[in-house]
C-alpha cells in the first residue's frame, strides 16, 4: 500500500511539488518566526537579567514595587548564607538602589543610584563589559567609604568614592573621568545625604535609559551616605541556569521560610513586563501558526480532492478487485502522510538553513533600537534554533496534513464501486 501511495503522490509531479513546497516553505516560515521570537525572548531575558535585574532577588516582604525596593533588609548575612549553600546559585551580591541627584557645577540630574559590591557585581551583570573609559571601580572599591553629609566629611580613599556613569549622563553634567560630582539622596533617618564621588569609569550600553539615568557607586559608600550601616535593600543572585529560576526560587523561599520579613523573587516577578511581552509574542505566534496551518490544510485538501476526483474510477476498480472501504481510506491517508512527511522534511531542512544563516551572520532588526531605549539590546539578532518548537511545528504540519485528508479519505471510502466505475 505504501508503494502504491508513494507512486500516487508522484503521479502528478508538478501538483505534488507545489503542495510539498507550500508545506515546506510554510514550515520554514514558521520555524523562522519561532526562532526569531524565541531568540528575542531569550535576549530580552538575558539583557534584562544581565544588565540589572539578575535571576533572583531577595527583598523585604513589604515591598510591592520590586523594581524600586525602598525598605532595607536587616542582617543580610542570613540571606548570603542561604545563597552560598545553594548549588544552583552561580554568584550573588548585595545592593542598594535609591533615587538621587547627581550634581556638578554645570547642573543636576536625577538618577537611579545603584550601590553595588563591584567585585561580586562583575560576576552578576555585564555592566563592567560596557566600560569605554576608566574602569568599573578598582579592586577594593567596595571597602567602606565615607559619608559626606551635611557634616561635610571627606572620603577615606579615592577608590571607595568612585562613581561610574553612562556617557550621556556625563555629557549632560559635563563630567570627565577623574572629575568629581556630588551625589545626594535621602538617608534612612530623613536627612539628606550628600557625598562627593570621583568619576572613575564611563560606560556605553546603547540604551538611553541606562546611559543617561543610572550611576554606580560602591555599596559601602552608599551605606554611609544613606546612614544604613550594614543594611541593603536587596540581594541579587545569578543562577547557573536561568531556566531553573522557579525551582531555585521555591527552594530558597523554603530555606528562608523562618525569615518572615523576606521574600524571594525571580526575574519574572520583577520584570513582569517581559513575561507579558513573551505571552503577547507567543499569542501572536500561535495566531500566525494557526493561519499557516490553515493554509497548509487547505493546500493538502485541495491536492487530495483533485487527486480523488481524478481517480474515482480507479478507486472503483480497487474496490471491485476487493479493496475494502477502510483500505481505500487508508490509502488516501497514507498519500497525505507522504505529502506531509516530505513537506515537513523540506521545511525542517530549509528552516534550519535559514536559522543557521542568520545565526552566523545575524539579522539586523530595527526592533533592537526600540528595545535598547529601555535596556542594552543589540540591533543585530543572531538567531538560535528552538528545536522543540521546530519539531513540534513539523509534527503539526504532518498532523494537519493527515487531518486535512480525513474528508477526502472518508469520501473515497464511501464511494460505491458501481457508481465509481461509471465515473468518467
Amino acid at each position, binding site marked *: 500500500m505504501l508503494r502504491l501511495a508513494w507512486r500516487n503522490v508522484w503521479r502528478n509531479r508538478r501538483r505534488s511539488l507545489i503542495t510539498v513546497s507550500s508545506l515546506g516553505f510554510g514550515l520554514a516560515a514558521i520555524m523562522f518566526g519561532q526562532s526569531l521570537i524565541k531568540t528575542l525572548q531569550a535576549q530580552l531575558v538575558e539583557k534584562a537579567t544581565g544588565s540589572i535585574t539578575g535571576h533572583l532577588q531577595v527583598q523585604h516582604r513589604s515591598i510591592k514595587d520590586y523594581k524600586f525596593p525602598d525598605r532595607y533588609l536587616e542582617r543580610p548575612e542570613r540571606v548570603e548564607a542561604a545563597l552560598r549553600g545553594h548549588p544552583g546559585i552561580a554568584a550573588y551580591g548585595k545592593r542598594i538602589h535609591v533615587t538621587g541627584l547627581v550634581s556638578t557645577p554645570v547642573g543636576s540630574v536625577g538618577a537611579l543610584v545603584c550601590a553595588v559590591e563591584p567585585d561580586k557585581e562583575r560576576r552578576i551583570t555585564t555592566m563592567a563589559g560596557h566600560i569605554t573609559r576608566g574602569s568599573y571601580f578598582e579592586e577594593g572599591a567596595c571597602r567602606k567609604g565615607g559619608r559626606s553629609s551635611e557634616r561635610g566629611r571627606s572620603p577615606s580613599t579615592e577608590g571607595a568614592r568612585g562613581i561610574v556613569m553612562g556617557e550621556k549622563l556625563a555629557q549632560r553634567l559635563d563630567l570627565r573621568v577623574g572629575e568629581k560630582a556630588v551625589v545626594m539622596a535621602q538617608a534612612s533617618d530623613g536627612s539628606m545625604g550628600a557625598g562627593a564621588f570621583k568619576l572613575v569609569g564611563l560606560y556605553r550600553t546603547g540604551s538611553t535609559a541606562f546611559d543617561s539615568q543610572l550611576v554606580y557607586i560602591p555599596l559601602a559608600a552608599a551605606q554611609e551616605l544613606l546612614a544604613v550601616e550594614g543594611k541593603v535593600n536587596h540581594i541579587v543572585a545569578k543562577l547557573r541556569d536561568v531556566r531553573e529560576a522557579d525551582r531555585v526560587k521555591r527552594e530558597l523561599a523554603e530555606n528562608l521560610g523562618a525569615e518572615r520579613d523576606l521574600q524571594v523573587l525571580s526575574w519574572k516577578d520583577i520584570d513582569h513586563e517581559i513575561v507579558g511581552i513573551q505571552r503577547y509574542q507567543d499569542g501572536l505566534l500561535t495566531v500566525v501558526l494557526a493561519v499557516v496551518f490553515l493554509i497548509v490544510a487547505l493546500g493538502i485538501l485541495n491536492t487530495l480532492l483533485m487527486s480523488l476526483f481524478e481517480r474515482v*474510477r*480507479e478507486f472503483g*476498480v*480497487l*474496490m*471491485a*478487485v476487493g479493496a*475494502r472501504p477502510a483500505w481505500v481510506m487508508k490509502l488516501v491517508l497514507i498519500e497525505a502522510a507522504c505529502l506531509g512527511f516530505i513537506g515537513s522534511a523540506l521545511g525542517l531542512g530549509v528552516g534550519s538553513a535559514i536559522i543557521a544563516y542568520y545565526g552566523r551572520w545575524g539579522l539586523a532588526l530595527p526592533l533592537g533600537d526600540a528595545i535598547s531605549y529601555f535596556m542594552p539590546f543589540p540591533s543585530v539578532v543572531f538567531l538560535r534554533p528552538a528545536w522543540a518548537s521546530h519539531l513540534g511545528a513539523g509534527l503539526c504540519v504532518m498532523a494537519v496534513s493527515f487531518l486535512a485528508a480525513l474528508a477526502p479519505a472518508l469520501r473515497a471510502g464511501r464511494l460505491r464501486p458501481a457508481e465509481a466505475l461509471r465515473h468518467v
Partner: protein
Amino acid sequence: MSEPLIEVRGVSKVYDGNSKVAAVNSLSLEFHAGEFSAIAGPSGSGKTTLLNIIGTLDRPTHGEVRYEGRRVSHLSREEAANFRLRSLGFVFQAYNLIPVLTAVENVEYPLVLQGAPKGERRSRALETLAWVGLEQFASRRPDHLSGGQQQRVAVARSIVHRPMVVLADEPTANLDSKTAASLLDLMEALNRERGVTFLFSSHDSAVLSRARRTVHMRDGKLMP
C-alpha cells in the same frame, strides 16, 4: 445436473431519478461452474447493471443473488469486498489497470489485498502473466502496453487469485477485431484448460458467437 454456481432470483434494479427507471426488471437465471457464457443485448439493455449486481458491485432493488447457495446480494460493503476479493474476478471494457503499477504489480494486487506473502504473490503473478503471454512485459507500466496487452493483463489480474468466476463487461469493446479475437482465444483457453468460469457481456455478434451459452436482454428483461 449439478447445483448452479450463480443463482439470480427475481432481481430488479430501479433507479430513482425524475422518474423511476428499471434497468433490470424481475430477472431470474442461473450459471454453472465452468461455463463460458455471454449476456447479449444492445446498449442500455441492462447488461452492465446485471453484471454489477452479480458481481456485488451494486445491490438489487428487489430479488437476490446467490453463489453456491450463499446469498451475497445484501452483504455489507466490507463483506461484499471480501467476497469479491476471494471469489470474483473482473475485466472491464476500459482495461482499468492502476497506471502507477507495472503489469506484474497490477496482476499481483488482489494477492496483496489478500495478504499473500511477497514471494508467493510475485511468483503467482508472473506465472499468470505467462498464461496470458505477457511475461516479458511484466515490468512495463500500462501506458507502455497496447490496448490488447493491457486487457490481457486485466485478464491475468482477474484470475490470479483463482476466483469462482470472472465477470467481464464488454471486454473487447475497445479492441480491434483481431485483438478482440485473440483475447477471446485466451479466455476460451483459460476456460477450457484451467477451468475458469467466464461470464461476459457484449453486443458484438462476433464475440457472442464464441460463447457456449448466450442470454439475451432488452430493456432490462430476458428475451426468449
